[in-house]
């Protein structure tokens, strides 16, 4: 019973983290691509953030769902 509760809480945390991170990443991307003319730097920033978020979310998912 307790174990199920914890698993569901971990899953919920994953969904919330995914939602907030995606929104934040989208906003960061929007600002960098809209308001800077330095496209290479914008690519580096957005892609590196995307990779960090993906890696963290993948780790969370691998523990919450397996």
């Amino acid at each position: 019973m307790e174990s199920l509760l914890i698993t569901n809480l971990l899953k919920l945390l994953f969904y919330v983290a995914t939602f907030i991170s995606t929104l934040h990443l989208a906003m960061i991307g929007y600002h960098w691509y809209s308001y800077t003319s330095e496209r290479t730097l914008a690519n580096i920033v957005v892609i590196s953030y995307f990779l960090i978020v993906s890696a963290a979310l993948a780790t969370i998912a691998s523990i919450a769902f397996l």
Partner: protein
Amino acid sequence: MLLDKIELGSDERVVKTVRKHWFIFFSQIIGIILLWTLPIPLLALATWWLDGVVPIPESFISIKVVAFFYSVWTLIFAGAFYHELTDYFLDVWLITNERIIAIDQQGLFKRSVASFRLERMQEIDVDIVGIIPTFLDFGTLRIDTAGRDEEGDFKIHGLAHPREVKSLILEAAEERQRTEGAHAAEAHY
């Protein structure tokens, strides 16, 4: 693109784009980086310190639990880091040969763009206060303009090389006055 959104006049060209000094960004992110790495020594210390004193359940320090919470921790601090980076990089002053455009990015949902023509400039001050700003050459640049109260003055804190920027603005303003004078003389004759 930045300049696509800000319409420049037909004869207007950007003389320089200025930002805050890198130290300002560094001082904002150093706390984020320190807090991000803090759990690693804390966990190591706690494990070493409590080892043998308090029985630690196997599950408490399993690699899965550590990876899970550190991933959440990383998400939070990565978000904060990129937030600060965006805030720093998009806070910018564009000095053109006709006006100054001050773009103030405050977080992701507040962005203000203000501009004034160089002929409206009345006074320009530079303040460099403290040891680090003196050595690294950054400070506050304030421009008083006609028709604005003190709170509405244009001000940028932590600007890199403020004296150079001040000279550049003054040069641009003088150039502007000469051009305006020439146009006025042409119109008169």
